[in-house]
């Protein structure tokens, strides 16, 4: 029973780590380039979820001070929310860049499968 309560306390972090490992697995094993980009997105979301879980406060209100009444409201930790705002934009721009690379790879190689690309590359040497 003690273990169950312990697991329930850590459930957010376990979920984040599960997502992280799933994302890592997708990036490492899948040969389709789009799936690998998806894996990166899953990993990014997992880490931002972990950040928020770290900054979470039970029954904490969103960090907005109401100007007139200085009521004693417990706020959540605002810093992780700021960090993941920045992190989300970073993962978005990495995804856009890799998607544009996939468009170009499909145009030049005719395929977006890593194994086929490696086969084609082994076929001819690099010419300037």
């Amino acid at each position: 029973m003690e273990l169950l309560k312990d697991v329930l306390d850590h459930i957010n972090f376990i979920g984040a780590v599960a997502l992280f490992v799933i994302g890592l697995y997708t990036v490492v094993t899948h040969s389709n380039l789009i799936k690998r980009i998806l894996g990166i997105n899953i990993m990014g979301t997992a880490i931002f979820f972990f950040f928020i879980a770290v900054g979470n406060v039970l029954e904490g209100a969103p960090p907005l001070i109401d100007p007139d009444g200085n009521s004693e409201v417990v706020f959540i930790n605002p810093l992780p929310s700021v960090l993941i705002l920045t992190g989300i934009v970073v993962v978005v721009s990495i995804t856009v860049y890799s998607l544009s690379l996939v468009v170009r790879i499909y145009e030049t190689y005719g395929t977006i499968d890593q194994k086929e690309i490696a086969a084609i590359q082994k076929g001819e040497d690099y010419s300037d």
Partner: protein
Amino acid sequence: MKKKFIASIFILLFVVLVYSIMQMPAGVGVDSLAYSESTEYYIENAASETGVTNIVAAILTDYRAFDTLGETIVLFTSIVAVVSVLRPDKKYEEGERHE
């Protein structure tokens, strides 16, 4: 066979991570280690120091404004990077583009 081997490595990684997370402090309240004095400082002084009620906006654009500058540069770089990959000028006939 190879796929199962890789899959088992990842399951092992997951088990190790979950095991170590169980040892981590799950304090999800005001007393948790992450709720350090810097967080208390933000909550108490954000209104007076920056004159703004949304603490997240205060941190984003005043306390850690250099982070957000880095952020806008990431956005600018992603545009230049995508343009350098996707914009072959010979295909682009619509008049003289800016460069």
